[in-house]
C-alpha cells in the first residue's frame, strides 16, 4: 500500500467539502445548513494543515484564522436564526422569503 502522502489528505478534504456542499444545497433546516458550512470550513482547514507539512507553518496559522472566522460566522448566523424564529416560528430556509419579490 502506498505511504500516506499529502494527496490522501487532500482527497479526504475534497470529499468532506462535497458533503458540505450537498448539505447546504439540499437541506431545509437552517441549523443543519450552518453545520454543513462548518463541514466546508473544516475541509479547507484540513487542506491548509496538510500543505503546512510541505511549505512551513503558514498553513497552520491560517487554519487558526479560519477557525476564528467560523466562530464569528456561527455566532452571527445563529443570532439571525433566533431573531427570525421569533418572528416567523419556522426554521426552514425556503420559508425565509421576506425580501423575495
Amino acid at each position, binding site marked *: *500500500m*502506498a*505511504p*500516506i*502522502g*499529502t*494527496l490522501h*489528505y487532500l*482527497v*479526504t478534504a*475534497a470529499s*468532506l*467539502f*462535497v*458533503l*458540505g*456542499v*450537498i*448539505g447546504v*444545497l*439540499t*437541506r*431545509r*433546516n437552517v*441549523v*443543519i445548513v450552518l*453545520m454543513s458550512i*462548518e*463541514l466546508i470550513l*473544516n475541509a479547507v482547514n*484540513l487542506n491548509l*494543515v*496538510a500543505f*503546512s*507539512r*510541505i511549505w512551513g*507553518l503558514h498553513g*497552520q*496559522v491560517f*487554519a*487558526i*484564522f479560519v*477557525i*476564528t*472566522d*467560523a*466562530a*464569528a460566522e*456561527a*455566532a*452571527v448566523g*445563529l*443570532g*439571525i*436564526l*433566533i*431573531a427570525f424564529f421569533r418572528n416567523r416560528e419556522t*426554521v*426552514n430556509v*425556503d420559508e425565509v422569503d421576506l425580501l423575495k419579490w
Partner: protein
Amino acid sequence: MQPVATTFFFYFLSGLTLASGVLVITRKNPVHSALALIFGLLAQAGLYLMLYAPFVAGVQIILYAGGIMVLFLFVIMLVNLERSQKEEQFNKQWLVGIVAAAALGVLFVLVYMKGADLFPVRMTLPTESNNTQEIGVMLYGQYMFAFEIASLLLLVAIIGAVVMAKKRI
C-alpha cells in the same frame, strides 16, 4: 518520534470523519446531526495530530468541539420544533443540488489526477516539540496585523450576535 501504523490511523480517522459528515447531512433530528459533527471534529483533530500540528488539534477540540458546538446545541434547544421533524427535510431543488455537488466532485477528481505530481509524497518532518512556540512567534510577528483584524472581527461578531438575539431592537 517515528509514527506507528500511519496507514491504519489515517484510514480509520478519515473514514470516521466522512461517515460523520454523511450523518450530519442526513439525520432528521438536528441534535443527532450536532453529535455526529462533534465526532467528526474530534476525528479531524486526530488527523491534525498525524500531520504534526498539535496546536491546531488542541484549538480544534477546545474551540470547535467545545465552544461552537455548544452554541449550536443551545440554539437547537431554543428553536427545536417537534413539527419541523415531521416536515419534508429536503427542499425542492435537492436533485439539482446533488448534481451540482457531484460536478464539483468530478472537478476535484480531475484536478487531483492531473496535478498529482504537484503534491510530493515526501514530506519534511517538522519538529512538534516547539510547534506552539513557533506559531506564537509567527502570530505576533509576521501576522500581527491579521491577528488584530481577527480580534476586531470577533468584537463585531459579539455585538452582532447580541443585537440580533435581543428581544426588542
